[in-house]
């Protein structure tokens, strides 16, 4: 493998391009959120009828997961050589 510091500029190297992609992503999210109020959904349980249930659930679940992991890390993280047998 070779390390070339001066290789060519890629599309994603420019922060404004990344921001452009993120903006597209935000618009998609907004549209998906709005769709819930336009499309008639065939729900199976009452919980699903909560407006934008899946969107809210997805966001909250993800944040909870990360918060939970950070708490778990305090409990379980050890040095990388923790299990190394010293003979």
């Amino acid at each position, binding site marked *: 493998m070779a390390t070339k510091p001066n290789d060519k500029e890629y599309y994603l190297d420019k922060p404004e391009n990344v921001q452009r992609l993120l903006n597209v992503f935000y618009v998609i*999210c907004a549209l998906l959120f709005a769709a819930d109020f336009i499309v008639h959904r065939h729900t199976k349980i009452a919980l699903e009828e909560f407006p934008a249930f899946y969107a809210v*659930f997805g*966001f909250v*679940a*993800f944040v909870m997961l990360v918060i939970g992991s950070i708490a778990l*890390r305090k409990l379980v993280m050890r040095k990388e050589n923790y299990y190394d047998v010293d003979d």
Partner: protein
Amino acid sequence: MWMTELPPFIPFFLAAALALFTRGHLQSAIMLAAPLLGGLHLWLYVPADIVYSLPILEYQLILMRTDQLSLVFGYIFHIAAFVLVVYTLHLKDTLQHVAGLVYAGSAMGATFAGDLITLFIFWELLAVSSVFLIWANRTTEATQAGIRYLVYQVLSGVLLLAGALIHHHYTGSLAFDFIGLNNPGGWLILLAFGIKCAFPFLHTWLTDAYPASTHTGAAVLSVFTTKVAIYALARGYPGTDILIYIGAIMTCFPIFYAVLENDLRRVLSYSLINQLGFMVCAIGIGTALSLNGAVAHAFAHILYKSLLFMSMGAVMYRVGHVYASDLGGLYKSMPKTTALCIIGAASISAVPLFSGFVAKSLVMTELLQQGQIVVWLMLLFASAGVLHHAGIKVPFFAFYAHDSGLRPKEAPVNMLIGMFITAVLCIAIGVQPQYLYSILPWEMDYWPYDVTHVLAQLQLLMFAALAFVWMEIKGYAPPELHSVNLDAEWFYRRLVPAGVQRSVNFLHMAKVSTLTMLTGNIQRMQNKFGRSPVARYHLSESWPTGSMVFWISIILVVYLLLDIVFYK
């Protein structure tokens, strides 16, 4: 008729034997032929009602029993084996090639086994052959991880055999059909399957050994062992309630570890357990739709999970490690691997039009229909979690994130072809699920693509991704760190060894102090006796042994004489 009754493991074992003595292109051709010809044969000529048994003494080993359940697993194992052979062709390591073929063959053997003894034989062969894919790394770490792996796998086999015998005692049958939990044998067999299926607390062999295997080995390992266990559970324990809850726990706990782990192959290993959880849970529900869901999920999962492991294998091959903290920016020099990895990531995240979506939908829908709301919520949470570790973390940290400055070469052509075929299948199943649905074992009427369902899934994924973007920008996400994260293996890698060391030390100290105390006491008693007036009496002196022997022989002679004199 012999041709239809050819047990599917035979081409693999044959190819393994031939691969042992061949090299180069001939070896490659033999390795490619086994899954290709075997798979075509199974697909074209083998109907779903074959039973072929081999008499050994008075026992019939049922080497081949086909029904739609075993056939579906047979198909996907052949497809995966073919793809993996292509993927590993660049290797010049006959050990791994032979081990891989025997391993894949053993999976076929176990899948088509009609009785528990045949299952046991292939169960153990799976263990013994696969461990070489770990040992082939030829490092101390891999050797030790391999031994721990083997201990677990063999333990599973022993439990299976013991359970089978007890099951036979109660039921009089060794047939590998529905087993259930009506007798202690059933529980032992469930435990045996549970080890191979990475049930909670029995799962650490997986997260320990897979990241320690060779760069190609992890992809191979990810396909067979655990999915044979899923197949065995689907046959032996459909509708067993406890599996619903075990499965639900399996989907949830590994994702927390997956968020923390720095080694991306270990992230995928935790993710593998999470995926198995969906299947185990579906088997526990036990309806036609959910069992089909478990099978379809296993089918799709084998493809996308091996695709992800293959892409990480390619990075491993080019860079030498897969630590998220030290990678990044690889898309610049490995664009094809990046694209293929993203297809795997989209599939595992169950993005509509990819294979994970059409498989997972079956399970999720049936959970709702059965009113298992809490379990459904757990699985929904886990689905958002999958997006984090497998959908975003693996491709993002390896190929994008911060530029690590690494510019490795693109993966070898054979690796790319192997990954490409798998990626095409992932998309094909996602776009045209009717073909997968048509080979599923149970009757069902289901179509995953309706507006409600697609919208719900897209919302779930996109807003989970939004949370990721938000936390990355704000810096709330936990950083990737070189570390060990304690898991259940702590019990046998730290607690027990430390406990044993302490116990040995303690026993040694106890022995030494007991001996000192005893000898001291004896010495004191002797000293005390020596000072007493009795000690001066002739008989209380210590005599030499010789004189004692002399007096005993005198006594014996006296006995002899008395006997002669008084006998009559």
